[in-house]
């Protein structure tokens, strides 16, 4: 079972053994560097664009949506896309565009809350487990127990487990958040544990220990800050998964209940219509869902590069090279940031 985590651990180790301070290109602001990266890598810019747009839509939905998202209109059911219903209406006559615009309010809330809870809880426990596992005594025993428990949790079929949690806690926004958090927590636990176990062996940690620093202070001031980068990279990818999980739960009727606008339940509502040729109630929310998750995946891959000092340096070098190649005369002054 541990075999599946091997590649992740290999990458993780590489991250922490690289010194961090030298990574930033000298003499440039972080923001300028970030903007330059977006210019050099348009697909990252696309990702950030999509995520920003979805977040803005969620916040300003009441201003943007042309109709009330839960207002049924039996007189105008299953209208094809056109005017005034740009994406048509569903079987109860609700405006699909308005519902697609309102949906990220629910989906993003669940995904963000669930992912953040699992990341914080999972990495705190993971850090403690990684720190104490190599020490003898009660700490090691407890760590071993936590790892076996997480083995058992991970042996469960993810989806059935999530449905069972929602069924136990009752169908509500909070229980879906808890289900998402529960299912994702072991990922962070393992990631943080392997990170901490490698950082722990660093000289500066040993030095702090010899200087008499308390365990808690070593963990919070020296170990966790140096082990956190891959966790951050995992976050964005995970938000995408969490959105998919939320939609999937709603699709089978164990998540958000209709008529609350939510992409998964909208796809489920249009399920019967698609067989009779009315494609729009299912296709549009699915597209919105896919584009959103795609955006978070792109942001995730950019964070993966930017949070990894070695890869960030490589990217900065590439950008610098390309900039020099396009400059009309002479070499660029040392330390230029490429953000002009």
């Amino acid at each position: 079972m541990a075999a599946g985590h091997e590649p992740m651990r290999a990458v993780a180790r590489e991250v922490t053994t690289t010194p961090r301070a030298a990574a930033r290109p000298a003499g440039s602001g972080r923001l300028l560097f970030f903007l330059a990266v977006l210019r050099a890598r348009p697909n990252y810019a696309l990702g950030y664009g999509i995520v920003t747009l979805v977040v803005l839509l969620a916040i300003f939905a009441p201003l943007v949506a042309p109709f009330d998202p839960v207002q049924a209109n039996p007189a105008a059911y299953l209208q094809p896309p056109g005017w005034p219903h740009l994406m048509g209406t569903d079987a109860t006559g609700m405006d699909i565009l308005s519902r697609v615009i309102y949906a990220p309010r629910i989906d993003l809330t669940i995904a963000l809350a669930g992912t953040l809870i699992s990341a914080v809880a999972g990495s705190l426990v993971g850090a403690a487990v990684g720190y104490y596992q190599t020490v003898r005594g009660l700490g090691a025993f407890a760590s071993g127990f936590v790892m076996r428990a997480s083995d058992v949790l991970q042996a469960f079929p993810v989806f059935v487990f999530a449905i069972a949690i929602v069924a136990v806690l009752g169908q509500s926004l909070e229980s879906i958040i808890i289900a998402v958090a529960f299912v994702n927590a072991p990922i962070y636990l393992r990631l943080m544990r392997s990170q901490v176990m490698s950082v722990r062996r660093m000289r500066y940690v040993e030095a702090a220990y010899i200087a008499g620093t308390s365990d808690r202070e070593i963990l919070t001031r020296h170990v966790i800050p140096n082990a956190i980068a891959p966790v951050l990279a995992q976050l964005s990818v995970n938000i995408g998964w969490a959105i998919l999980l939320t939609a999937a739960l709603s699709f089978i009727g164990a998540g958000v209940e209709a008529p609350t606008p939510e992409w998964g339940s909208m796809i489920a509502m249009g399920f019967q219509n698609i067989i009779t040729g009315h494609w729009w109630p299912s296709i549009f929310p699915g597209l919105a869902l896919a584009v959103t998750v795609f955006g978070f995946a792109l942001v995730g891959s950019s964070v993966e590069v930017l949070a990894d000092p070695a890869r960030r340096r490589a990217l900065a070098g590439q950008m610098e090279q390309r900039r020099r190649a396009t400059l009309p005369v002479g070499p660029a002054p040392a330390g230029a940031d490429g953000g002009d």
Partner: protein
Amino acid sequence: MALLAYIGRRLLFVGPQLVGILLVSFFLVKLIPGDPAVLMLGPFATPDALARLRTELGLDGTLIEQFLIYLWNVLQGDLGTSWQTTLPVTIDLAQRFPATLELVTLGLLLALLIGIPLGVAGAFFKRGLLRKAADYYGLLAGALPDFWLALVLIFVFYTMLGIAPAPLGRIDFAILPPEPVTGALLIDSLIAGNWAAFWNAAGHLVLPVVTLGLINAGPILKMTQSTMERMLEADFSRYAEMCGLPRHVVLRKALRNSLPSIVTIVSVLYGFLIGGAVLVEIVFSWGGAGQYAVQGVLNADLNPVLGFVLYSAVLSLVIYLIVDLIYFAIDPRTR
């Protein structure tokens, strides 16, 4: 000999692990509100009848007692009865598990056929259109909800073009299914020599298999590409290139060395899909094992859920064991 000892050591941990998994799922499902006795007898049952049924179902002991009784029955091969189908869970699962396995196995095979060539090509041509396409495909496959993709495929190939069968199960109602031997319709109809059933079942498999294949090719592609890239940059590849070996030989050697991580990702996906294919099963009314478990959770039907969890846990343990044996076969360093 070392191999046998290794397998023995692995099997030693299987028992406690299975009991742990059963314990957690038992209490989790027991916590689901809903009394099977009330659900079975309806809202107008007399308290007497309810009490009798509870005793009959073994619901009147403490939770620990109930769990121990359940465990004892499991050891004797009795997984209890589902009150929804009124059949023993072992019989229900014997029908449904092969359906899921057939679907998932074919889906993963297709995913391998898509993912490995694209991954190898992406690692070989580091710049250019093909690499870009492979990168975007990997991201996109991870972003598409499988249940939605299934609906899109149904819309295009059933509703619009009319070339796919209706998404209503594994075989047409009009066609007599072959005598169950393995439970997998394709194999059974071959055994029976029933070609009509074979082609009909194959037709029903196409859309769900394509759905699973397209989605799961994403992670396989990413894993193949990143491992191949590492292998092509490794010293042995450089050396082979310097010696002037032709490109396809260098590629083949790199691919051979990438096999362990590809096997790993396939085993992870396989374990995940046993329960994770449930959405595709629902869309195509497949009647698979995942669907059975989800129905159980939604209706407080304990035994099907536990039976499913047990079967899939055993299956993933078997898969991981097979994977370890494959490592032995393909990676000389493990010997």
